[in-house]
């Protein structure tokens, strides 16, 4: 059973329905105990880093999540759920994350230019991923596939070896990572039509 962590941030229903569509059982849970009993864990998240971390802590999820990750349970972080794995984020001041992946979360630079035009932030819409290395999450996913992004901050892992995909938006940034049992994407598989559903299926099959 896949546990989708509900700590009061955003639309979780699409994620659950996405797993349902590919034939996997997923439950939305606000009970920290479920993290221990689940076979796999998905940490979604939209909104601000600080609020997400605070809600995660207030919901009693921090220790169960760290324990489950350390125990080798397959884990998928999406968007803020990816960013929170890192050491810290500079969104609304410097805030500590879960510290599972050493590195930082930073805002896109001001005044990025592409084709002579100033790029808008947030980075919102469909953009391509460049795959790096082999990764079960990307089984059957084509190089250059379009995925749906919506974010103003991006992750910078200290160890570039964990980067599973890169995307260009003014700068090139880490759009997916893989480290042992830990998988994370800056884009939203649950909003990325067939390509995204295939990734959910891959995760369910790990």
């Amino acid at each position: 059973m896949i546990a989708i962590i509900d700590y009061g941030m955003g639309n979780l229903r699409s994620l659950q329905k996405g797993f349902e569509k590919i034939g996997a059982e997923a439950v939305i849970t606000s009970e920290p105990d479920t993290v221990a009993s689940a076979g796999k864990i998905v940490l979604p998240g939209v909104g601000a880093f600080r609020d997400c971390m605070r809600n995660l802590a207030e919901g009693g999820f921090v220790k169960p999540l760290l324990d489950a990750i350390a125990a080798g349970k397959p884990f998928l972080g999406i968007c803020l759920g990816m960013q929170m794995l890192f050491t810290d984020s500079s969104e609304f001041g410097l805030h500590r994350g879960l510290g599972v992946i050493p590195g930082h979360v930073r805002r896109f630079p001001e005044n990025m230019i592409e084709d002579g035009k100033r790029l808008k932030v947030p980075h919102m819409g469909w953009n391509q991923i460049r795959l790096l290395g082999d990764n079960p999450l990307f089984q059957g996913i084509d190089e250059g596939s379009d995925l749906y992004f919506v974010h103003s901050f991006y992750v910078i892992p200290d160890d570039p070896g964990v980067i599973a995909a890169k995307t260009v938006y003014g700068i090139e940034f880490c759009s997916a990572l893989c480290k042992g049992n830990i998988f994370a994407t800056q884009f939203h598989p649950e909003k990325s039509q067939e390509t995204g559903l295939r990734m959910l299926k891959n995760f369910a099959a790990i």
Partner: protein
Amino acid sequence: MLTRRIIPCLDVTGGRVVKGVRFLDLRDAGDPVEIAERYDHEGADELAFLDITASSDGRDTMTEVVRRTAERVFMPLTVGGGIRVIDDIRRMLNAGADKVSINTAAVERPDFVREAAERFGSQCTVVAVDARRVPGEERWELFTHGGRRPTGIDAVEWGVKMEMAGAGEILLTSMDRDGTRDGYDIALTRAMSDALSIPVIASGGVGNLEHLYEGFTDGGASACLAASIFHFRESTIREAKEYLKKRGVPVRL
């Protein structure tokens, strides 16, 4: 490279999609979930639902439409119309929407946009700006209540204010062009896009594919919203994207 988005818009009332001209002469035009699925297959980048019912029981019907759509279609979904309090947003997000668009409530209480962005994030807070050109001038006035009520506020200045309040995107509709099929108000779209650092969605007036091209290039829009041309199957979304690609606009095919 980030692709430009094509967003089909569905006007919904009583659980059905309707089409009319400027909210008049409404005709039943199908089941929203079925139409959403068709657009999904054609390669739409996002979907927008506009709830054109004002009553509260109408909103429950709308929530159900969002719920059923989110079960079948896995792409970003924006819902507008009747979003007035934080609970309206929560209800739509829980039903499976990703963004809500706020119009009248933002003007009546600008702090509402700030509260929404703080609570749910800028990424789901879209402000809908309905604008009409001030006759003989290169500026536009903001309207509320589905474009019926003038505010005396400059539309572009309002957009800047909403960006500062935390809006993640502006859905910009030209009231002059809406329903005319004469194309977007390009000067308005360009003025708004140049003034803001958040994405602008152009809306109102699309009559052919050339208009989409103009919205992206001359208007500087990040996304183009259209209803009739897709609705009446004058073009599929795929045809629109193939056309844009041929003309050098980056799109997802």
